[in-house]
């Protein structure tokens, strides 16, 4: 599976007046595409801090001491704030624990929901056009270079033609989509309204009927509702006449229901029809010599496809492929030189004391070579090459600035320490300790730099080794799809009305009753559960890649919790969303998680699939968590975890959970347990798994529960 996010040795601490609090201590995990990873732990275990680090919103007094968070080839701990702007909320979205704090109290809900959509729509429009133009220009250039400048003007003209009929295609498709969307929405609305009218429980009827009429009128379009267009208009008029009768539930709704059902069936039929191939149609209408034949949609599609292929597309694809191959060749050649260059300058960074001038010159030379390897026509950007220079520069600045800063820090510490010692010598009892001087570790920085260079070399070598395996046909198709997608971004703009419709739909999706009324309300008019739903709707509006849920349902009741979890699960399946789900409620986790990481005192203590953790938990802390919650068959006394989590200013030497653990052994207080592997997917950090450890049994409450669950499971299988 493709890994979306990798977290390696992440260590975060917070400066406080009492000293450094170690919130996260070297955690590792991967997040695959379309997977839910659940992080479970008590409050203060560092789970929220981890998620905030991924989103780059750590508090001001935080120090990222080490590690990396790799998303899309970039290390999120190193990229600039500007780059983060493009990722935060758009690619990685977050649902926070407290809904009130993530809503603006003086802005209406509707505006908060649509704001991002409209802004993003505008930004995307600009960006799409720019992307389209640059990519087209690059492709054109490469195509010409590939054939050594022969028939350059012809190739340019082809590119221009592509642009032209692509626009026509989008106009056509835009109009069709609008009509189609209106029709499908009308079908849904009609079904619900007719059902409610039959049951005499419909509310807000005139508004809804009017809306259906509007939608029905909109769905009249050449390729949607065509044959029955007159019938639809007549039915709309009839419905309008019936409104006064069905205003109250007592009124006679028989006629209205019949009209609604007929309208519904017409629209439903229209919705299910095949859509014409607008891309080909765009070409035929722009450059075709003859009019389109009046045949069924399937035949029309076949005709247009053939026409397009014969006259333009096959040719264009062949040329584009040549261009792509040429550009890749150039890039491979440059990669070879870059490897040599990088290897040549590596020793400069391996010396005992780095020389600033030498280093700068080396970096400059390397950067030029690295930059040359960038293949602009590659759709998946080679982010390592892109970020190489800025990343190195960053480390170098830190390295060469360190000496002075370290001196200052040491001096400050010495002065404070001297004062402290004087006070102690006078016999005063001190209520504070002098925090250690913050010395920048030059060695670590140097190691980082060497690793960056080595990694890039490795990366290039890897890519050269795979040279023969490249599928240029597939790449050409992908490139053309990319062009199409960007072109559609230009036309499909998000107006206020579209945004409102989408927002209302989202509100309905997350289960808010009467969304139209709610749209114009302020956050304080919503209850806690409703607010949380709004926050979820906002997070989903941006259509993110990774969704971080920080206790999203803790404040909600069972039915709504269940609805929201189902919603998140549904979206996960539909959009291949990767989810990090943070919670302390293990019941919720069982439903959501593919894999679970149990955190305690800033460390992951157990890590495995949901089945591993629930049926075969190995760490005493996981046992404690499992046995402290009642389920429907629990009768015995619950086992609460005694004591409180340790003070992380002075993290315990051994296992952090030892003090609250009734299974703790002597070694637990002395040495930290390593991660023991239990199975391919299951790891736990406890000395109990050591081969020399005494055998202990799980608490009875858990074994009983597992036995019950197994029994239930087998009963279900038998059925």
């Amino acid at each position, binding site marked *: 599976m493709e890994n979306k996010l990798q977290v390696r040795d992440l260590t975060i601490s917070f400066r406080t007046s009492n000293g450094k609090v170690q919130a996260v201590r070297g955690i590792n995990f991967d997040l695959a595409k379309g997977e839910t990873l659940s992080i479970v732990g008590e409050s203060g275990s560092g789970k929220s801090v981890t998620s905030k680090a991924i989103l780059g919103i750590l508090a001001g007094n935080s120090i990222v001491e080490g590690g990396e968070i790799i998303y899309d080839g970039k290390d999120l701990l190193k990229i600039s704030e500007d780059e983060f702007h493009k990722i935060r909320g758009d690619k990685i979205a977050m649902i926070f624990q407290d809904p009130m704090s993530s809503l603006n109290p003086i802005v209406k809900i509707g505006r908060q929901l649509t704001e991002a959509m409209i802004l993003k729509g505008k930004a995307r429009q600009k960006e799409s056009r720019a992307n389209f133009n640059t990519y087209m220009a690059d492709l054109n250039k490469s195509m010409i270079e590939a054939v050594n400048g022969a028939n350059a003007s012809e190739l340019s003209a082809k590119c221009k033609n592509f642009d032209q009929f692509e626009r026509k295609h989008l106009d056509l498709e835009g109009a069709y989509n609008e009509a189609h969307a209106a029709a499908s929405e009308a079908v849904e609305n009609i079904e619900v309204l007719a*059902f409610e009218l039959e049951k005499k429980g419909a509310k807000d009827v005139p508004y809804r009927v009017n809306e259906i009429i509007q939608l029905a009128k909109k769905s009249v379009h050449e390729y949607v509702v065509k044959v029955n267009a007159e019938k639809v208009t007549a039915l709309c008029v009839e419905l309008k006449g019936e409104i006064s009768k069905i205003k109250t539930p007592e009124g006679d709704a028989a006629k209205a229901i019949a009209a609604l059902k007929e309208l519904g069936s017409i629209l439903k039929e229209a919705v299910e029809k095949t859509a014409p191939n607008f891309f080909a149609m765009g070409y035929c209408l722009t450059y075709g010599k003859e009019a389109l034949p009046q045949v069924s949609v399937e035949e029309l599609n076949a005709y247009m496809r053939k026409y397009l292929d014969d006259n333009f597309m096959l040719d264009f694809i062949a040329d584009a492929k040549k261009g792509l191959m040429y550009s890749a060749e150039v890039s491979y050649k440059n990669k070879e030189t870059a490897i040599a260059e990088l290897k040549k300058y590596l020793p400069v960074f391996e010396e005992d004391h780095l020389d600033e001038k030498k280093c700068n010159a080396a970096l400059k030379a390397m950067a030029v070579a690295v930059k040359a390897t960038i293949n602009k026509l590659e759709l998946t950007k080679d982010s390592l090459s892109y970020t190489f220079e800025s990343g190195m520069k960053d480390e170098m600045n830190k390295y060469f600035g360190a000496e002075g800063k370290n001196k200052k820090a040491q001096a400050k510490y010495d002065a404070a320490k001297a004062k402290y010692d004087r006070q102690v010598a006078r016999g005063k009892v001190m209520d504070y300790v002098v925090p250690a001087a913050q010395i920048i570790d030059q060695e670590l920085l140097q190691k980082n730099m060497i690793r960056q260079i080595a990694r890039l070399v490795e990366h290039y070598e890897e890519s050269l080794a795979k040279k023969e395996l490249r599928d240029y046909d597939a790449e050409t198709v992908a490139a053309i799809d990319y062009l199409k997608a960007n072109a559609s971004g230009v036309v499909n703009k998000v107006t206020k009305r579209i945004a409102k419709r989408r927002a209302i739909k989202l509100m309905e999706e997350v289960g808010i009753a009467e969304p139209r009324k709610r749209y114009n309300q302020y956050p304080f008019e919503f209850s806690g559960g409703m607010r949380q739903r709004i926050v979820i709707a906002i997070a989903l509006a941006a259509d993110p890649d990774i969704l971080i849920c920080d206790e999203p349902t803790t404040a909600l009741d*069972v039915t709504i919790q269940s609805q929201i979890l189902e919603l998140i699960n549904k979206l996960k399946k539909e959009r291949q969303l990767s989810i990090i789900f943070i919670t*302390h409620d293990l019941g919720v986790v*069982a439903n959501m998680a593919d894999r679970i990481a149990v955190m305690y005192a800033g460390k992951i203590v157990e890590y495995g699939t949901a089945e591993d953790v629930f049926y075969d938990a190995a760490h005493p802390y996981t046992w404690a968590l*499992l046995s402290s*919650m*009642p389920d429907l068959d629990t009768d015995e006394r619950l086992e*609460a975890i005694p004591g409180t989590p340790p003070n992380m200013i002075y993290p315990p030497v051994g296992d952090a959970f030892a003090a609250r653990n009734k299974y703790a052994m002597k070694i637990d207080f002395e040495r930290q347990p390593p991660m023991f592997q239990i199975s391919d997917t299951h790891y736990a950090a406890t000395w109990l798994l050591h081969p020399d450890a005494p055998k202990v049994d799980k608490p009875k409450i858990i074994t009983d529960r597992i036995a019950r669950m197994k029994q239930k499971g087998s009963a279900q299988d038998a059925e």
Partner: protein
Amino acid sequence: MQNNQDVLLKVEHLCQYFPMEGGELKAVDNVSFDIKKGEVFGLVGESGCGKTTTGRSIIKLYNITGGSVFFKGIRICAGKRSYQDAMKSAKKEYGEKIKNASSEAEKSQLKAELDQIIVENKAKIKAANFDQKNCDKEYSEELVKKLNASYQPAIEAASGEEKAKLTAQYKDALRKAKKTKLVTQIQMIFQDPIASLDPRMTVRDIIAEGLVIQGERDKKVIDEKVYEMLELVGLVREHASRYPHEFSGGQRQRIGVARAIIMNPDLIIADEPVSALDVSIQAQVINLLNDLRDKFGLTILFIAHDLSVVKYFSDRIGVMYFGKMVELASSEELFLNPLHPYTRSLISAIPLPDPIYEKQRQRIVYNPLADHDYSVDQPSFREVKPGHFVMCNDAEFEKYQSILK
């Protein structure tokens, strides 16, 4: 239902409406139940269904709209709406009948009937108003009477120093008795342990506040009681001088519990006491409430939305949906034979720590319009099986009974 236990709290046709633009919001609509001494009664439902409002109406934080609440047999809340409605409908009926009335005699008879109904209902309204205002006063007067009866003869009989001592004792007790309210024997534990504690008061002041209001002046007595309560809820004496922000969530909730039980209440209304807490701390607080219940025989009205906790903790459970009680049964019975579709949908939504089960779990969706046909026959709250009540109409009643068989 066992009749050998005393009913501590009896709620009859409780209605709590809030005026809103364009009508009234029926937060609680015709809810009836009773709680026996020493039992835990769970009230579940989704947010906004009126379970918290029910709790607050019982403790008189709102003036209820209709129905009545009896605590230890004394009516503490009384609403007037039902009487007003009765008068209105009688007047309307009279207006229609008078049109059709033929003779003078018939007319005058109708008028007399109407007058009687109005007089009766007006008297009831007056009684309701009186009870609503004066239940506490009556209770304290009763206490004063008892005190007089016990002290007066002793004081008269004694002389000299002893008489002075007795008189002082009597005066102290009298002052307290006069300030004692019946409602203070119902105490509340709130959901949010942070918001329900005054950040500017020490824990001692918070816990002792009720005692001070009730007229206790002896500092030593107050301190002793506060320490006793702190130890009871698993805190230590030293905590008394601290402020709420110095405590963790679970400890704060313990302070809330201590504040409630220092008044020696007969009934505790626990409004989502564990919803805002971590799982491990939830277990601590539930264990604490269980211990206190065993120790003092507390009666608890437990309001929550987490069904596994409610099941674990309650003897009987009432399920509420949009202001109405839809099902009431003992907790085993409710989970074994859920009858009302809403209860079934609630139970189907409970998450369990069992991944395989969870991945198969199908949530049942409750849609009142699709699940019931109330166009002809309106539902009412009926006893399907001894102790098991469901909101249903005739057809459903028969269906449920056949299910139970």
